[in-house]
């Protein structure tokens, strides 16, 4: 995808805040504007989303009413992926030279409560004790481990890495490290997944400013080229949350489809990527997504973790800021946090968690229910 660059990124740190969700979104936008050396009046169109913290276009009340088209976006946990893809497409279409993608959220504590009727399912499903996202994640990874002869101990390895990376990330919510033994002693929620293997709902904001590549050097000394930005849905038969039944024949997941399309758009392959952010709603998701994005074969993950390939300093560092497990998941902002972390890594601004050897190509993948995946491929401009 030629022609679009990221020139400003900003985060309102994830976790718990006394600010409203909209205020956290505004903090992120102001930080991104400062990063790019731009003013709010320079933004020509905007795309944003939030699940529980209000309409994204209400940010104009805090930032100024400049008459731009501000599109509200909602695609579940993949909202950030849809926002950046839409902003990039606006530039590609010639609609704008400078565009904003923003997300923010502020969720109540505890697991998200879901209503069967919102999903087109009868009340019997929730009444029978089947409508829990945690069950879905447990059943999905349990079958995956079975199909590919993987040992459940890899789940604690992934979680340990997330907390270790979070502990050296100043803005991460979870700053405490845990051993694999600590993780394996935390409460079982849905076999084989324990409490410390899950991310939690959180608060925060994230904003990204994109521009036409030809202008990028005017705004930032190290622009990041967006080589691909793709959002895709699933095929019939993919295993998704809140399904009273599934066909016996599996279809390709949204992530498999989006990943293939993104690599094609960028003209690079999985072996070219130097640093990645993969959706880790729980530890099993990172395991599955390593293979679904083409970085390893299904079943190779055990060997990958044993060799330390996904650690900072490994051949493909994954979730260098601790991912969703250490940062929590403000749904509207989560996919944009992934892109921001990769931008910092490509610029060499990763601090103690900086990936060595000057990474050039980065990858992000966000996944949302019921089967939406957003993939970005980013490159440090030469």
């Amino acid at each position: 995808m030629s022609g679009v660059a990221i020139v400003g990124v900003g985060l309102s740190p994830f976790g718990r805040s006394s600010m409203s969700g909209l205020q956290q979104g505004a903090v992120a936008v102001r930080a991104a504007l400062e990063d790019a050396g731009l003013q709010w009046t320079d933004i020509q169109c905007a795309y944003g989303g939030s699940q529980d913290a209000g309409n994204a276009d209400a940010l104009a009340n805090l930032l100024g009413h400049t008459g731009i088209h501000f599109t509200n976006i909602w695609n579940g946990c993949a909202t950030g992926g849809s926002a950046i893809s839409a902003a990039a497409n606006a530039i590609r279409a010639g609609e704008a030279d400078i565009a904003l993608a923003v997300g923010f959220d502020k969720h109540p504590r505890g697991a998200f409560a879901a209503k069967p009727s919102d999903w087109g399912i009868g009340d019997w499903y929730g009444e029978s004790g089947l409508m829990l996202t945690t069950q879905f994640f447990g059943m999905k990874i349990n079958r995956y481990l079975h199909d590919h002869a993987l040992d459940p101990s890899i789940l604690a390895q992934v979680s340990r890495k997330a907390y270790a990376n979070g502990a050296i990330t100043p803005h991460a919510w979870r700053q405490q490290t845990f051993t694999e033994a600590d993780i394996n002693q935390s409460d079982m929620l849905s076999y084989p997944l324990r409490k410390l293997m899950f991310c939690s709902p959180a608060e925060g904001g994230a904003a990204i400013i994109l521009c036409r590549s030809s202008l990028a050097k005017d705004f930032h000394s190290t622009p990041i080229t967006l080589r691909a930005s793709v959002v895709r849905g699933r095929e019939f038969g993919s295993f998704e949350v809140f399904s009273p039944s599934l066909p016996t024949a599996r279809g390709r997941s949204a992530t498999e489809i989006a990943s293939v399309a993104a690599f094609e758009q960028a003209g690079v392959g999985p072996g070219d990527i130097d640093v990645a952010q993969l959706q880790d709603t729980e530890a099993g998701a990172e395991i599955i997504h390593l293979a679904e994005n083409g970085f390893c074969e299904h079943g190779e993950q055990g060997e990958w973790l044993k060799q330390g390939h996904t650690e900072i300093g490994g051949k493909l560092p994954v979730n260098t800021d601790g991912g969703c497990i250490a940062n929590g998941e403000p749904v509207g902002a989560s996919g944009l946090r992934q892109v921001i972390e990769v931008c910092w890594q490509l610029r060499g601004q990763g601090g103690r968690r900086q990936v060595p050897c000057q990474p050039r190509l980065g990858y992000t993948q966000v996944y949302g229910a019921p089967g939406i995946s957003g993939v970005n491929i980013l490159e440090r401009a030469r």
Partner: protein
Amino acid sequence: MTICIDDSILDITNSGPVLRASRCRACGHDSFPVSERCQRCMAEEIEPLAIVGRAQLWTWTSQDFCPKSPYLECDKKPFESYYVGYLNPLNTSVLIESRLLQPGQPVIGDLYELTTLNLLPENGAVVTTFAYRSIAI
């Protein structure tokens, strides 16, 4: 009084529980609950499919904390963990999500039998839903 949780999905007969599903005449895809159109090929030629008897366990997990409302036993104390899974009823092309009834930890591939499970909400009602019971010895 005992009531069926939803008689559009579950029929409790004298010879046992029956799940109300549907089969596509065009492509053979099975749906549960009944689908007006085939979810696979979108054809409208749908016939009823009664699911009874045995099924093979495809995957499973445990529910180790008490679900919130609308779970009918969300106020029951103490909470007892339960298992859920997806099972493939024999001679169908569908995996059904269900509560599992069994003594120990489930094993993928084991055989189960369709049965009923009575849920006891705070209001004193007895609500019958479906479940699969392990027949592995």
